[in-house]
């Protein structure tokens, strides 16, 4: 059940009606828990068992950590959680990848390498990371272990963020569960405004750009250089609007219910350097990687060289988190190297780096950052290194020939996206927002819905980040 499908709208309306009719907070929590498992089971009911298992293990581990008398005992409990969560990830997501890469070694030893026929449970990367952060927070003493198993189950399974984030931490979410208030008109309005924004981003922007990007990435060698450039830019727009659209819808649905989610995107393509990009892109993941990977690795506390290594390693693993493929690892490694290089450059320039830059320098910084991000998206999107090199070859070494295709609808969307990013620069990073209390917002809403009805490419296009 994806947020932009008719069945989700039916599900959401029914859920809101039930929440409205429910008497008492316990009833509302029960409804939310059942609805969350129904939502998840809609994909494949068998996934629910894994979700339950992860939930109960970490619930027990957190209680164990709190009860442990010694640091060693706490560490042992923490290890149980890490082995459990990372073990599930390794088995479901990476096992075939590992086996395929170890195949030459197995062959030397005369062993047959099996290919496991496992289905990747949707959302596993998100809920395992969310669960790990909870256990580590309890281990660090930042959060008490939750006593109420039903509420903890709801924290892990809460449907708006279950499949593709944002990765919500226990310290952000669990305190809000103490008071699931009856539906409030104000929350429903604000949530609906956010949901409509996300819905438009997904079906008008992301899905339109996909119509252009997908065929070109499928056969990059067949297209002309300009078409390849435009398709890569279209993919950059697609993944941003797909993921930030999903996030807006998740934030909107949670808001309707009365739960606040953290911001996950802040116009990343206006970034002037790669460090700024990662402060604006998938913020809940980048902050998770910082707090639960980079800092435990030593962060910047163990000297310059080690800092650069930690940065690169964190991003490399962040790349692998996205999928079991070397192209994702390469994507992460490139970002890690760029972050390390940028940090080195800043440290080398010292105070000069903090001096305000002129418009030309700003533009060049922006262009360099944007082109770098585009190049990394080529590895992220391509099914293999061969396809990625073909695409990059077409982009940077145009040999002439190839199919010349400029998809008009995608160009309109890219123009609107450019305007939206430029608007955010002049308006403190804000996006244009609907305020349905104002009468003039309703015609705008009607126009947006009309555009969606008339121009959104139909078809159930799953969100890109569901596959991670």
């Amino acid at each position, binding site marked *: 059940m994806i947020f932009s499908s008719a069945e989700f709208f039916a599900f959401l309306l029914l859920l809101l009606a039930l929440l409205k009719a429910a008497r008492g907070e316990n009833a509302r929590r029960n409804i939310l828990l059942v609805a969350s498992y129904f939502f998840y089971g809609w994909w494949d009911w068998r996934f629910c068992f894994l979700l339950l298992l992860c939930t109960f293990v970490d619930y027990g581990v957190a209680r164990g950590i709190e009860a442990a008398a010694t640091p060693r005992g706490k560490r042992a409990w923490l290890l149980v959680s890490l082995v459990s969560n990372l073990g599930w990830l390794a088995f479901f997501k990476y096992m075939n990848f590992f086996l395929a890469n170890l195949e030459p070694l197995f062959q030397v030893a005369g062993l047959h390498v099996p290919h496991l026929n496992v289905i990747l449970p949707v959302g596993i990367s998100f809920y395992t990371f969310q669960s790990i952060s909870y256990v580590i927070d309890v281990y660090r003493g930042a959060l008490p272990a939750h006593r109420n198993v039903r509420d903890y189950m709801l924290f892990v399974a809460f449907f708006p963020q279950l499949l593709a984030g944002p990765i919500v931490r226990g310290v952000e979410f669990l305190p809000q569960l103490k008071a699931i208030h009856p539906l409030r008109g104000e929350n429903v309005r604000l949530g609906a405004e956010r949901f409509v924004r996300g819905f438009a981003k997904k079906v008008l922007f992301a899905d339109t750009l996909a119509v252009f990007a997908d065929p070109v990435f499928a056969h990059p060698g067949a297209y002309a250089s300009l078409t390849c450039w435009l398709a890569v830019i279209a993919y950059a727009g697609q993944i941003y609007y797909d993921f930030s659209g999903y996030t807006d819808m998740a934030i909107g649905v949670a808001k309707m219910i009365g739960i606040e989610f953290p911001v996950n995107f802040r116009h990343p393509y206006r970034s002037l350097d790669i460090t700024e990009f990662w402060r604006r892109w998938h913020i809940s993941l980048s902050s998770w990687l910082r707090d639960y990977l980079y800092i435990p690795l030593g962060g910047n506390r163990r000297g310059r060289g080690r800092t650069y290594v930690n940065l690169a390693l964190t991003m490399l693993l962040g790349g692998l988190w996205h999928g079991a493929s070397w192209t994702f690892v390469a994507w992460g490694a490139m970002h890690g190297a760029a972050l390390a290089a940028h940090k080195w450059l800043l440290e080398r320039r010292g105070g000069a780096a903090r001096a305000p830059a002129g418009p030309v320098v700003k533009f060049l910084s922006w262009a360099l950052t944007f082109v770098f991000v585009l190049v990394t998206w080529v590895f992220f999107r391509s099914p293999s290194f061969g396809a990625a090199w073909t695409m990059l070859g077409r982009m940077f070494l145009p040999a002439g020939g190839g199919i010349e295709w400029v998809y008009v609808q995608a160009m309109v969307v890219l123009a609107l996206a450019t305007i939206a990013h430029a608007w955010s620069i002049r308006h403190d990073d804000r996006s244009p927002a609907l305020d349905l209390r104002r009468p003039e917002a309703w015609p705008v809403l009607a126009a947006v819905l009309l555009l969606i009805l*008339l121009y959104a490419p139909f078809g159930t296009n799953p969100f890109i980040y569901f596959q991670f």
Partner: protein
Amino acid sequence: MALAGIAAVLAAGELVVRTFLESPSVAVPVARLEWAYPPHVRIVHSSEGYSVRRTNSQGMFDDEPRATPPARSVLLLGDSYAEALQVPAGRAFADVAERALPGTEIVNAGVSGHSPLDHAEWLETVGDSLRPDVIVIEFSDANLDLMLTPAALRRFASPPAPGVLGTPPAESGLRRGLREVLRRSALATLTWHRLKLLGAEQKSALSRRFNATGASAHARPQAAAVVDPRLPALLDSLHTRIARHAPHVIYLYIPHLDYFAPGQPESDPALTRVVAELCARRGAAFLDAAGAMRSEFRRTGQPVHGFANSVVGSGHINAAGHRVVGEALARTIAEVAP
């Protein structure tokens, strides 16, 4: 104020859609043929390619019939490829072929969604008034399958009396009301088409969800190894009905090409074999446009299917495709009826 604003948005939407994007649903129901265009209506087409066209006095997307009889008259019967709403007026392959053959008039009676069965029934109604020297039957990958639906097979079993298409079936008040709204509002027409599409998508998605299948009923596997065994006999009987109206018949096949899989057959071999055998048996000509289209792609590197507002390499043929098909058709007409 909010309501007035919404009304203003809808009015502006109607104006923009009507002027630039989609005409109201002006087609009228016709028994057996489902629908046809009335004379002298303006049609804007923008879902694939772009054109603003006007039907002639016979409800066809063509010039008015010539006042003086041409040296050679050709009647083109076909589907949306022949109708050619995706390209501007004068760029359809019928126009290209007509320009290449001085003294020849090609009457383009192509209607989107029509199959050779529809052509035969239409001919039996109006064909005697046309008396062409050549009839061209254009078909593509999907529309021969349209003759195998239960409704089409019933039509085969009970052909119409000559000159009579019958009256369209009676409609309920609700359906008549809906048709009236669609006839008046371009926005309603476009919305209706989109809702139908959305409903089909949703049905397909739910079907996939619960049945683990959901392949489109219209999808024809490319290069299928076999065709339906009933097809040769059906085509044979249709040919008999069509060939009564002209001394020469040409079957024109416009295939989809796979531009990204070198080595694939250029057209559906089973389908073309059936039609080629029919032509050999009955003395008709067969033009498979795949070769000419593939040559054009090799020469220019640009697909002859697809447009700037659709996926390149898929869907209908573009202006280059119409040019190539038109030139090939002109050569075939000249050979068949010198």
